[in-house]
Each structure stands twice: as structure tokens, then as C-alpha cells.
């Protein structure tokens, strides 16, 4: 139990919180809570624990709620960031129905949060930035006046700079857009290519609202003719043109000349797409594409070739005279000489489409050139505070919501399997069944009749006695290849409630194992597994103490499935 001060308080608190009828005994609980909160002897760790406990409490009435909030008010001014954040979270959760109280709390926590963002400790800085981003999802204007605190400093580690750039992108408003853009422009020429690219993408994000200024900056960046910059700028242009068609003209004027500086797959795809869709406004579009077509044999990325096919066909529709010849050459190459089947198929498709007639081609290929409504879908709407309030002050904002979902999915699947007995053989770590296979083993045919009793504890003597007294009811041979780890098998069998009495160690020749299981009617199944020295088949002998064929068959099928799964994993 965490140390909360005196023993009696801890006892009272324990009693109060563990009582399932606590909500009924509101008065007593409230007194305890008040007493605990008022304790001045609590140090910062005790305070954090108390705040954590209080998360479970549901105040019955509005006045009780505000009562508790008033009592806890002083915790918001504490010097320890853990306590301040814990208090904030509690406020946010308790005041679920009062958004103005939530906003108020977030305003009050601005100061400590900003102080943490400029703290000497890099790690605290990073965690605070993650929380700032979380808050900005709901209150985008919250930190706008403090944008200067999020300017990146030269000596900061990379991960902090990336977070700060994201924050800058999200807190832009009319007053600070000029300075923020200038700052980001400075980062775009940074020595570190990753950071420069992140800054350019951030400018792209801001460009959705402040299109003209951003397009101007991006055009200037193209002028530097640096490879890592140009490719990201072209990608940003492609995304921007789709969402903000008003900047197409400016983009088209900026494009000529940058094809010399792009070498990577993503950049090329973006450029080719732009040339294809908006080619009629770009004077030298066919000649650029011709360059690509000339070099298509040495092109390594199939995605670029696919994009090239589509773009050239589109351009052909608007500028037929210039493109006809090279389109023919490209199609010939893709159909006759290309090894990647996806590219070849697309080439064939376009060829057949052209054979049908030019009107058909126009009908199919002339898609809309932009879709501003996609911007609405993409931009995360301002999420209400309640959607993330319970994640505040936990590890969730640090990882990001999507990554946390994957992590907890893995953890959840782990924990929902049946509890394994903590025998020493399990403590030895061995290769384990990966997730998918374990689930398959669990989903065994619950073949109507057979329900194996878990936690069967059969002694070795009893097993031996029973084994020797029974006749073999069923014998079978399964194909088996190569070595395996006995622990894996043991655990797999445990999952389906088959107990291992004895097992040879790995590599022993001949390898033997004795298993036992009991179904809910009390029928015992005793099994011997024998692996012959040649290791190519496993012999299974099953003895049953009551003759019941259908249960025997079910048991055998369970065993076969398990062994089959192990065999697959191994291979």
C-alpha cells in the first residue's frame, strides 16, 4: 500500500474504497475523503495516489462535485508536476458534464504545462509536449499566444524538435501565422534532412488554411534545388492541389525545373501525378514525361511506372499530338517487356481501353481534379475534451492513440488466455506460440460431447498404475518433421486442459511423453506420444478408462489439432 501518512488513515481509506456498498454510505465516504484530502502530511507521492483513488468516485450532486473541486484546488498549484497533472485529470473527469469548468481547468494548467515544456529535463519536456498536443486537439487556440515557447532550439534532441514542429503546425492562427511560417521556413533548410522534411510537411498542413503564403514559401524552397527538399515539396504540392484547387495555378508555375532534383520514388510519383492531371497548364509537361519514358527500362520502382502510365494517358487526352508517340512506346514496353505483372496488367488495360475508343477513355479517366471536401474528412474535427480526458496523465498521449491501440490489443489477447499454473517449467523462457496460432489452438472444436476438465492433478504413480491396467484404445501415427521444443507442446496442451505427466527433454532419442486428461463425466484419457529415432512420425497411443467411442474420437481430434498446430509453427 502506498504510504499515505498515518496508519489509521490508510485503514479508513482501504475500508472505504473496498466496500462494494460505498456508494450507499455516501456520508461516511465523503468524510473520509475530506479528511484524507486535508492531510497536510501527505507528500507528493501520497497526493498523487489520493488523486488516483478519487477518480473512481462519482459525486451525487452538483454541490458535492464543486465541494470536492474546491478542496482539491490547492493541488493544482503544487510544485510537483505529477500532482498538478493528476489534479487536472481528476477535474476533467469529475466535471464531465460541465465543459466550462473543464476549459477553466485547462487554462489554469497552461502555466505549469508550459514550464514543463521548457524544463531542463528533456524527458519531462517531451511528455509535456505530448500532452500539449492532446489539449490542442480540443482547444486549438489554447496555446496560440505562447507560440514562441515552441520554437526549436539548436541543441534539442530530434524527437523533441519533431513534437514542437507538430505543435507549431496546430496552434497557428491569424496573429501568429507570419512568425510561425518564418520560423518553419528557417527549419526547412536545416542540416538534418528528416527535420527539414518534417518542417515542410508542417508548412503543408498550415497551407490548408493559409494557402497563398505557404505556396509562396514552398516555391522559394524549390529554388534551392536540394534533393531532399524538392521531393518533399512536390509531395506537399500534390496533396495541397487536391484539397485546395485555388493554388493550382501557382503550383503549376513553380513546377518546371524540379524534375532534375528528384530521385526517390515518392517524389517521382508525386511529380508525375501532377504532370498528368494538370499537364495542360504546364508547358513542358510532355517533355518531362518523355524523359521518364526514355528511362523507364532502368526505373526501379514499379509504383512510379504505374503512375507514369496513368499520367501519360491523362495527358494524351488533353495534348494528343505531343504524347501519342511516347504513349505508344510506353505501352509497348509495359506489355511486352515489363516483368512486374501489376504494371503489365495496367498497360494492357489501358491499351484495350484505347482500342474501344477515345470517348470511353475520356469517360473513365477524367476524374475530378480536386476534392476540397476531403479536407473536412481528413482534418480531425475538434474533439470534445471528454474523449481524451481519461487518457490525460497516462502513457496514452506519449505513444499516440493509434499506437496505444495496437499495444493494448496485444496485451489484451495475452491476458485473456487461461491462467497458467506457475510451475517452474514455465518460468524457463522458451520459444512461445505466437498470437495467431495460440488463438487457433484455443478455438478447438468444442466438439459437442467433449469438455476437458482443467487443472487436473494426477500423480505419476496413479498414472502409471492406470496406464498399466488399461488396454490401448486407439493408436495413430502422425507425420512429423524435425525437432521441436517440448515446452511449446506442453503449453499448447495445457491450453486445452491436457496435463503432461512426464516428457523427455528435447533431443532425446526416442522422445516420449505421457499425457492425461479427464472429461466432465470422469472419463480418463491417458496418452503416450512416441517420436521414433528417425523423427519422421509421431506415434500416439490413447487409453481410456471407460469405453466411449465418440468421446475418444473427440479427444483424438483435439490432440491432432494441437500437434498439427505445433508442427506448423515449427515449420
Amino acid at each position: 500500500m502506498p504510504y499515505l501518512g498515518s496508519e489509521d488513515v490508510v485503514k479508513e481509506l482501504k475500508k472505504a474504497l473496498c466496500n462494494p456498498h460505498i456508494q450507499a454510505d455516501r456520508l461516511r465516504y465523503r468524510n473520509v475523503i475530506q479528511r484524507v484530502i486535508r492531510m497536510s502530511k501527505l507528500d507528493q507521492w501520497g497526493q498523487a495516489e489520493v488523486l488516483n483513488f478519487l477518480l473512481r468516485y462519482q459525486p451525487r450532486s452538483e454541490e458535492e462535485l464543486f465541494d470536492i473541486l474546491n478542496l482539491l484546488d490547492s493541488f493544482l498549484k503544487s510544485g510537483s508536476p505529477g500532482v498538478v497533472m493528476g489534479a487536472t485529470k481528476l477535474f476533467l473527469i469529475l466535471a464531465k458534464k460541465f465543459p466550462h469548468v473543464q476549459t477553466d481547468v485547462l487554462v489554469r494548467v497552461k502555466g505549469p504545462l508550459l514550464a514543463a515544456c521548457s524544463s531542463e529535463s528533456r524527458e519531462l519536456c517531451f511528455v509535456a509536449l505530448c500532452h500539449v498536443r492532446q489539449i490542442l486537439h480540443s482547444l486549438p487556440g489554447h496555446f496560440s499566444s505562447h507560440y514562441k515557447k515552441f520554437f526549436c532550439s539548436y541543441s534539442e534532441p530530434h524527437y523533441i524538435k519533431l513534437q514542437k514542429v507538430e505543435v507549431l503546425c496546430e496552434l497557428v492562427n491569424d496573429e501568429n501565422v507570419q512568425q510561425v511560417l518564418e520560423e518553419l521556413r528557417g527549419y526547412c533548410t536545416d542540416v538534418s534532412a528528416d527535420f527539414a522534411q518534417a518542417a515542410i510537411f508542417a508548412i503543408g498542413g498550415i497551407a490548408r488554411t493559409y494557402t497563398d503564403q505557404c505556396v509562396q514559401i514552398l516555391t522559394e524552397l524549390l529554388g534551392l534545388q536540394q534533393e531532399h527538399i524538392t521531393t518533399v515539396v512536390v509531395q506537399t504540392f500534390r496533396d495541397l492541389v487536391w484539397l485546395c484547387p485555388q493554388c493550382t495555378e501557382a503550383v503549376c508555375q513553380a513546377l518546371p525545373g524540379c524534375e532534375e532534383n528528384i530521385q526517390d520514388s515518392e517524389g517521382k510519383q508525386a511529380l508525375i501525378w501532377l504532370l498528368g492531371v494538370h499537364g495542360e497548364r504546364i508547358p513542358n509537361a510532355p517533355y518531362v514525361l518523355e524523359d521518364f519514358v526514355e528511362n523507364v527500362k532502368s526505373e526501379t520502382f514499379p509504383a512510379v511506372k504505374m503512375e507514369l502510365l496513368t499520367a501519360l494517358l491523362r495527358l494524351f487526352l488533353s495534348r494528343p499530338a505531343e504524347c501519342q508517340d511516347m504513349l505508344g512506346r510506353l505501352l509497348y514496353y509495359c506489355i511486352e517487356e515489363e516483368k512486374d505483372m501489376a504494371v503489365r496488367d495496367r498497360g494492357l488495360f489501358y491499351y484495350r481501353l484505347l482500342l474501344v475508343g477515345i470517348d470511353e477513355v475520356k469517360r473513365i479517366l477524367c476524374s475530378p481534379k480536386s476534392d476540397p471536401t476531403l479536407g473536412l474528412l481528413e482534418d480531425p474535427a475538434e474533439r470534445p475534451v471528454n474523449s481524451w480526458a481519461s487518457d490525460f496523465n497516462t502513457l496514452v498521449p506519449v505513444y499516440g492513440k493509434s499506437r496505444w491501440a495496437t499495444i493494448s490489443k496485444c496485451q489484451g489477447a495475452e491476458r485473456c488466455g487461461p491462467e497458467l499454473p506457475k510451475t517452474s517449467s514455465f518460468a524457463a523462457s522458451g520459444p512461445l506460440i505466437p498470437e495467431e496460432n495460440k488463438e487457433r489452438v484455443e478455438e478447438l472444436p468444442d466438439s459437442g460431447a467433449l469438455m476437458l476438465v482443467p487443472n487436473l492433478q494426477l500423480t505419476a504413480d496413479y498414472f502409471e498404475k492406470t496406464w498399466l491396467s488399461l488396454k490401448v484404445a486407439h493408436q495413430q501415427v502422425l507425420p512429423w518433421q524435425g525437432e521441436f521444443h517440448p515446452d511449446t507442446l506442453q503449453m499448447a496442451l495445457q491450453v486445452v486442459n491436457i496435463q503432461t505427466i512426464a516428457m523427455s527433454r528435447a533431443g532425446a532419442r526416442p522422445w516420449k511423453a505421457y499425457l492425461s486428461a479427464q472429461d466432465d463425466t470422469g472419463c480418463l484419457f491417458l496418452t503416450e506420444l512416441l517420436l521414433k529415432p528417425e523423427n519422421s512420425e509421431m506415434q500416439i497411443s490413447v487409453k481410456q478408462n471407460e469405453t466411449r467411442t465418440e468421446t475418444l474420437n473427440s479427444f483424438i481430434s483435439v490432440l491432432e489439432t494441437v500437434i498439427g498446430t505445433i508442427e506448423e509453427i515449427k515449420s
Partner: protein
Amino acid sequence: MISQFFILSSKGDPLIYKDFRGDSGGRDVAELFYRKLTGLPGDESPVVMVTTGGRRHHEGRHFIHIRHSGLYLVVTTSENVSPFGLLELLSRLATLLGDYCGSLGEGTISRNVALVYELLDEVLDYGYVQTTSTEMLKNFIQTEAVVSKPFSLFDLSSVGLFGAETQQSKVAPSSAASRPVLSSRSDQSRKNEVFLDVVERLSVLIASNGSLLKVDVQGEIRLKSFLPSGSEMRIGLTEEFCVGKSELRGYGPGIRVDEVSFHSSVNLDEFESHRILRLQPPQGELTVMRYQLSDDLPSPLPFRLFPSVQWDRGSGRSTLEPKPESLNVRLHLPLPRGVVSLSQELSSPEQKAELAEGALCWDLPRVQGGSQLSGLFQMDVPRLPGPPSHGLSTSTPPLGLGPTSLSFELPRHTCSGLQVRFLRLSFRPCGNANPHKWVRHLSHSDAYVIRI
């Protein structure tokens, strides 16, 4: 709560390992952590990492760590706990270990392994924090700290004064930084000393046209006390010290900070009226007060730089004009790729400049206030495929000439103007000699960047 705690050296050797809950895989988790840390892709943060997939015993385990004095202090947990709380715990543990062992470093930890484990036993129980207060812990810790050989005046290379690492060559250094605070030996000769430091970190960004883009001061008042606990201390700050923008005290602009926060044990009764802080400091280190100030420095900036760069000849001249006296100034200027040679003309022999890792580093050990220093640097810039020249003089520097960053220390100077007026002790009359009090003000640069 916490499952394990371990300390690794900067190369990944485990120095300390403690498992609190027994629900994890064992000592190899430290190696797993180091491998993950070194193998992390560039854009992921190392602060909080998680293991997914693979071995069940390490499944879903979160590693949270801080780097302190070249060591990694790591905790693992499998629950979704508050990251602020854990980071705070780690910092507090680092301070506590420093207090008990003298200083925190690979050597001191390896010498005091037993003490460290004892401390961990008392601080954390089954992964829950019991107490980190030095007062309470003093009653339980029995082991003595093993200190390295006593300090000798000839051993100037490892001097570290409490508060910030500085080297003042003319002052006899004290051993306060490396002496363990909480030694239970009742040495009469052990001085009763208390050190109060006002340390400020200055973070400045100046644009290429000379305008000030951002200025930020983060200040702390830190106390290191060797006194027996129970003595009451009163710290008086400048009377005209105002908090927030609307307060006004005294006459004239006064000394202003934006926000201030105090340690929980500080008594603020007299703060409103006379700006006096009262507390009963425990032994060891303590941060009494933290404050921030931005955008509105009362004193002018300590350094002004006048770079003039001419790229047709590939030379640059930098002129520094510092105001107060400063120490250990180092100017770091990243250069475009491919610059290999450097010739220089500096105004004084004790400075030196060299080309290191694609950047120019100009070191000035000591700079007088109000002086002007200049350095002329000439370097060969290979023909870069830079922006096409517009026919006229290439006044725009090529890509890669980065912003200048300065790092320096300003002793006896605080950028915000905050000063400690007095430090008075009223101690229990147990016959100790008058305790020595040391008060020091110091500013140093956090990130002082001047764009060219």
C-alpha cells in the same frame, strides 16, 4: 506500479538492478532495454518505449528512463501509469543518490552498491513509492557512503561546484559538490555549510536582421544544506520583485518575472509583504523556487554578434560584444559541407578556434565585460551546387552555414535581476560553530542562437 528499476552506464553495462514485483523476465530486461534504445528509429522518442510481440515475459512492458550524468536510470512498468509521476520519481532518485553518494556517476555508484540497494529498499516497496524525503530516510539508512580519495588542490580537472559545472581557476574550489551530504558520522570538523545558488538558464533567438525573436529565462533557487535539520532559514529576495505583469512594487520598473512556483515546504507568510521565504530545509539538495520570465528582459542581452560574411572569398568576420564578464564562451557555427581548412586571426592568444565536425568552434575562456572581440576566419568553400548566382555579389550564404550558437556562463549576474538580499539562519543551540553560508548567482546559456 513499478516492476523493475535499473541503472545502466552510458555503454549499457548494468550497474544496479532491482526487481520489485517478480512478474517479469529477469535481468536480461536491462540488455533488452539497451538494445531497443540503440536500435530505435530516428523519429521515435526514447523516453517511453514498449515491447510488443515476442517473448511473453517482456510483453507490453513499458520502459521509462532519464539520462543523468551519463547514466541511464530506467523503470519498467506494465500498467498505464502517469509519466509525469515516474519521471519525477526518477529525477528525485537521481538527486537522492547524489546526496547520499556524493555525486552521481558510474564510479560512485559502483563503489556504493550496498548503499544504493538499501536506499531503493526504503524508497520503493513492491513498486510503490513510500517516501523520498531525506528526513524520513535518514532514520533507516545504515550504510555509509564510500567516498573517493579526498580532494587535493592539484586535482583541478574534476572540480565541479554545486549548482552548475564551472571552472573558476582563481578560486579555491570547495568539495561541496562531491561530498556526500547525509553522512551519519558526527564529525565535528565537518563544516556546517549551506549553499544557495540562483541559477538562470537563458534561451535567446536572434534573427538575421538583428531583431530579437525570442528570449526566455528559466530560473531556479537551489539549496544544498549540510546543516542538521531543524534549523530554520530565512531567505530574503529583492524587495521590488514582482510576479506577473500587473503587479507593481517600489519605484521604477522593478524586477519582474512571469510565473513563480515554490517547493511545498516553503512557508510563504512573509512573501507577500517582504519577499522573504521561510523554510526548514532537510539535509541535501532542494529546489526552493522556480520562476520563468520571457520577452521582457530588464537588462540588455549579454552578447551581441556582428557577423559579416563574404562568400566570394570565403571568409567571415565575427565580432562579439559582451556586456558583463563571462567565462567559457564557446561559439559554435556550423559550416557548409566540404569545408576543410581554416585560417584564423584572433584578437588574443588564449582563444582558440578549430574546425570540428563540420563546424567552427571558437573558444574564449574568459571575456571581460564591455569588451569587443573579433575573429577573422577564412575557409575554403568548395564549389557547391548552390543557388544560381544572380550575377551580382553572392550575398546569400550557401546552404549549410548554420545559425551561430553561443554557450557561456555569466558569474555573479542574473538576467532577470533577481538577487538574494540575505540568508539568515536561526539554529538550535547545540553548540555548533557558526555555519558558513555561500550565496551565488549565476546565469548560463541554454540555447543562445543568432541567425546569420
